[in-house]
């Protein structure tokens, strides 16, 4: 047998990535792919219920459609401000980047507030889940008093799908807040938590749902304490990927859930 000499190249100083980009970004893409399957499953569950249920309710009046359209405009505008924040960050313009990030957060908060208002209205009219606290004077004769009993799939899939999306938007706002303001954002986050907790009645799902903000504040404090750093343009871009994803998901929720269930008289 002939002798073979195995030679190794000297270790390279620059190792090209298999996917042509840095690992943080690939990691976020992998997370988003898995998360899109979560939302895919919820959207398919909603569509399954819709196809298999002949008396599927159409609860969204013109007012709800206008509300959801404004919410969509908020999200689309937030995607624009986010991409401008990424652009400012790669140009090294920290001040402009922070302003665009704050604008993105404002649009995201506008979305969550409008969505919360929509939920509150529907719950007051009788559309509810068994896990929601009973509201005083709730809907014995409300428009949707029967819907929750006759077609329970509607409330379950509607609140499940839109609730999961609202959670993602809320966490997205917090993520951007940490990127934009770092440790300075923690006290602001605690103020948000107190405002959400004390500003909502005890029977509202948002009253106990507000504790998500408290948990996020604790997690963010630990992360910022363990690894304090100045976030660079790659961090802003990765945060932007997450933010655009929540916008992307809404582009399917809005027509499937709202527009296809509109009651236009």
């Amino acid at each position: 047998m002939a002798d073979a000499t195995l030679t190794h190249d000297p270790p390279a100083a620059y190792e090209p990535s298999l996917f042509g980009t840095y690992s943080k970004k690939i990691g976020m893409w992998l997370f988003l792919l898995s998360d899109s399957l979560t939302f895919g499953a919820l959207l398919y569950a909603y569509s399954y219920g819709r196809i298999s249920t002949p008396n599927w309710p159409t609860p969204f009046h013109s007012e709800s459609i206008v509300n959801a359209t404004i919410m969509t405009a908020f999200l689309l505008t937030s995607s624009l401000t986010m991409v401008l924040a990424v652009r400012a960050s790669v140009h090294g313009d920290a001040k402009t980047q922070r302003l665009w990030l704050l604008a993105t957060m404002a649009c995201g908060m506008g979305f969550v507030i409008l969505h919360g208002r929509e939920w509150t209205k529907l719950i007051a009219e009788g559309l509810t889940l068994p896990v929601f606290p009973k509201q005083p004077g709730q809907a014995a004769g409300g428009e949707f008093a029967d819907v929750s009993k006759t077609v329970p799939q509607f409330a379950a899939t509607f609140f499940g799908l839109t609730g999961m999306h609202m959670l993602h938007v809320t966490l997205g706002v917090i993520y951007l807040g940490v990127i934009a303001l770092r440790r300075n954002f923690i006290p602001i986050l605690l103020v948000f938590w107190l405002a959400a907790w004390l500003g909502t009645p005890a029977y509202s799902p948002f009253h106990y749902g507000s504790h998500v903000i408290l948990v996020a504040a604790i997690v963010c404090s630990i992360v910022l304490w363990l690894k304090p750093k100045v976030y660079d343009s790659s961090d802003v871009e990765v945060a932007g990927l997450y933010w655009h994803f929540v916008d992307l998901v809404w582009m399917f929720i809005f027509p499937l859930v709202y527009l296809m269930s509109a009651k236009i008289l």
Partner: protein
Amino acid sequence: MEAFQVAIAERVAEQHRHHGKSQFFVVWAALLVMTAIEVYLTYQNMQPVRMLTILMGLSLIKAALIIGYFMHMKYEISRMKWLTMCSLVACLALMMIFFPDALRIISLGVK
């Protein structure tokens, strides 16, 4: 980050510096226009299947614009584009296996 990761991030950032700001405004305007069309169609009392087809078509175009321009997928290398998008579409398409069952329930007359 490792030195080579910093080098890659710098290269990606360099690519981003060449993106014109105006293209983002054009994409944003296109997304808003398509949303307005969707809402307009809602008020036209169309057949549900036809309306669903148009709405999903518009949603797919909107999704492509967001992924391509806002998420910069258009500027990634083709291996990244094909691997991520094909795996996503394949997994979502597999979930459609449940829909014939939904139609079966209607034909069985289950209340």
